[in-house]
């Protein structure tokens, strides 16, 4: 077995004092959630994961808080034995910042649980349901060389999975997570298995293809177990002895890997994925030390084995940037020396244009990473730091435990693979905004430059020639709405997370007022930057359930314009009062005065720091900002729902 995957080698080794630190967990109170996450961070074997899950379970039993970990209830339905997997899921989820609670019905009750409205799973109100099925849980029969029967078998299997999804959706708002199917390692004919219809391999190929299509159309999520099994090797994935003895659908040695992949997807559903890749330069982005070896001495050329290894890192970074991951540099170098290869070396794939924040100086890297996070207005837990130097990695892990820092092997040829294997940038959806996001952050740096030039804020805002567009929730915007609801931490009044089905429900509920907001300016289209949900409260009142905004557009008075829009619709709907609430989290101090600044009156305060606010619609007149307003789709929504 390749130890990179089987032993999760991108994670640091478990410390020798793992057991004693685990015991100390019992007496920890105020920082329990953080301590649990710190214990979960290294690569742990099945016994260690089981022990950690036990400790988490005991703490929960004693009613202790696991904050700041995000609670998540996952129901797992399987045709195999998952009893050893469940504790691994709980411990691995803590690694990704999730306090996971697993609902596990009896063995092999998949259809009964999904289709019965008051089953254990359906009545537990899970956030997501994982269908941990393997090919032995599908109605499959071989139909060698018979394409029609083969197609019917594939459709039968997909129909079964759709029925399961419908059963869950009829009773809950849970997201369904389906697994693609790892084909058995054994062949029947040999290579012909893939070309001939009706063999096990071509049936499973067909099912995986159809399943991917079904999932991307239904708002469900796919966990690509087939890809995972192929990556580690099908003969290592499947263990016939373990299946016969205990109905394990894959090798016990791969449970930690599988559990980490489930945890990544759950974390991605909650928007807890990396957003920024911070690159060291010397011996990471190129071979050698630019300060010592000079422009001609560093290794970065095609045709040079060492150089190609570092080019692979650059290529991966560029690909990540293309899908919306922001790139930054943290290097111990003199600034102009560090910039020289980007500007002058013909073989460099990365250019200065690709780097949102460039920190080359002699400060320690923890300080630099903090500066990068601040400049980008993103949390430290959104940062991934790639550095070949174990000392720097250790320092950053110690000083900034929230930053993800992959271990790297000695051999640079494996750097790119190791970074990719870590799955730091797992996503469950891809919106067109993602394509542009890395550019947004760079444009922001330019806008900041413009602000310095023009002096006054109002003159600056006018010079941006902004157009703000308001629409109710719709199918086109849904993926991005769900993404914003689950990702936004800082400019988020209530930090309520909603799944795709829950957002769809709001979209189709005439009594719920929804708003998606887009902003364009002279630099380009910022895409969707704000989301609001108002729900009916007492008669004539709207409760602002959700109000969030992307930090990219801070300081543009967007929130004033959003309030003006809400007020307009409130008046039409006969609403006389808006009720707002600020629910404090670790990350949303930014908006503690949001309602006060917008002219709301304080209506209450709780010990937790939660504050309540109200605004009389009639008298309200928030300041306007210099931007063109487009309001569309509201009449169409009424018509659609009526």
């Amino acid at each position, binding site marked *: 077995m390749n130890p990179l995957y089987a032993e999760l080698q991108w994670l640091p080794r478990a410390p020798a004092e793992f*057991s004693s630190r685990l015991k100390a967990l019992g007496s920890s109170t105020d920082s329990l959630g953080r301590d649990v996450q710190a214990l979960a961070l290294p690569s742990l074997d*099945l*016994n260690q994961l*089981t*022990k950690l899950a*036990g400790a988490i379970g005991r703490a929960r039993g004693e009613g202790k808080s696991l904050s700041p970990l995000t609670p998540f209830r996952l129901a797992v339905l399987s045709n195999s*034995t998952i*009893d*050893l997997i469940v504790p691994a899921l709980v411990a691995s989820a803590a690694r990704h910042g999730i306090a996971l609670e697993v609902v596990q019905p009896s063995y092999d009750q998949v259809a009964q649980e999904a289709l019965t409205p008051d089953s254990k799973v359906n009545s537990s109100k899970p956030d997501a349901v994982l269908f941990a099925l393997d090919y032995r849980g599908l109605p499959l029969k071989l139909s060698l060389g018979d394409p029609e029967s083969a197609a019917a078998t594939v459709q039968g299997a997909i129909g079964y999975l759709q029925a399961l999804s419908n059963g869950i959706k009829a009773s809950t708002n849970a997201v369904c997570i389906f697994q693609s199917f790892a084909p058995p390692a054994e062949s029947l004919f040999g290579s012909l298995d893939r070309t001939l219809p009706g063999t096990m391999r071509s049936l499973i190929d067909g099912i995986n293809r159809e399943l991917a299509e079904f999932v991307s159309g239904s708002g469900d999520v796919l966990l690509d177990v087939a890809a995972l099994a192929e990556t580690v090797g099908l003969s290592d994935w499947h263990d016939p*002895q373990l299946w*016969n*003895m*205990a109905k394990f659908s894959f090798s*016990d040695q791969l449970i930690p890997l599988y559990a980490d992949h489930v945890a990544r997807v759950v974390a991605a559903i909650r928007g807890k994925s990396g957003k920024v890749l911070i690159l060291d330069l010397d011996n990471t982005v190129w071979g050698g030390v630019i300060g010592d070896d000079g422009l001609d001495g560093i290794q970065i050329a095609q045709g040079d084995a060492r150089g190609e290894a570092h080019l692979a890192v650059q290529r991966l970074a560029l690909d990540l940037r293309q899908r919306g991951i922001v790139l930054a540099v943290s290097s111990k170098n003199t600034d102009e020396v560090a910039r020289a290869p980007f500007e002058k070396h013909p073989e460099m794939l990365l250019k200065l244009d690709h780097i949102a924040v460039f920190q080359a100086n002699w400060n320690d890297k923890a300080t630099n990473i903090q500066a990068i996070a601040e400049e980008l207005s993103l949390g430290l837990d959104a940062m991934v730091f790639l550095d070949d130097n174990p000392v720097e990695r250790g320092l950053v892990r110690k000083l900034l435990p929230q930053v993800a820092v992959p271990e790297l092997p000695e051999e640079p040829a494996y750097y790119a693979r190791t970074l990719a294997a870590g799955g730091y940038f797992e996503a469950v959806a891809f919106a067109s905004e993602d394509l542009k996001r890395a550019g947004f952050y760079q444009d922001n740096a330019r806008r900041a430059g413009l602000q310095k030039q023009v002096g006054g804020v109002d003159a600056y805002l006018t010079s941006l020639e902004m157009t703000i567009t308001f629409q109710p929730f719709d199918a086109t915007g849904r993926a991005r709405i769900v993404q914003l609801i689950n990702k936004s931490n800082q400019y988020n009044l209530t930090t309520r997370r909603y799944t795709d089905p829950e957002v769809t429900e709001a979209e189709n509920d005439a009594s719920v007022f929804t708003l998606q907001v887009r902003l364009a300016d002279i630099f380009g289209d910022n895409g969707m930057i704000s989301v609001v949900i108002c729900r009916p409260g007492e008669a004539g009142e709207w409760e602002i359930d959700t109000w969030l905004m992307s930090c990219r557009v801070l300081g543009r008075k967007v929130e004033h314009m959003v309030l003006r829009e809400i007020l307009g619709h409130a008046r039409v709907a006969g609403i006389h009062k808006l009720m707002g609430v600020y629910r404090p989290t670790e990350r949303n101090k930014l908006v503690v005065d949001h309602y006060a600044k917008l002219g709301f009156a304080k209506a209450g305060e709780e010990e937790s720091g939660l504050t309540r606010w109200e605004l009389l619609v009639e008298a309200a007149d928030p300041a306007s900002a210099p931007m063109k307003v487009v309001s569309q789709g509201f009449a169409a929504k009424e018509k659609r729902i009526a």
Partner: protein
Amino acid sequence: MDEREIYARLDQVFQDVFDEDSIKVVPELSAKDVDGWDSLTHIRLILTVERAFKIKFSTSEIGKLENVGDLVALIKARA
């Protein structure tokens, strides 16, 4: 590997699997003596033993195990 070494390493395996530092294994020890030694923990135990001693047991060997003494005899025959 002599029996003493096997027992010493098994102590660690049992402590790890049952999350209980005080366990000391003796030949007569069996599932009914240890809290939490159910059929699934038994499988985790066997898998951990296999890993610790770098050996693999057959399904029928696993089926015949009655107590720690049987397990040690099996390890001795292999390792």
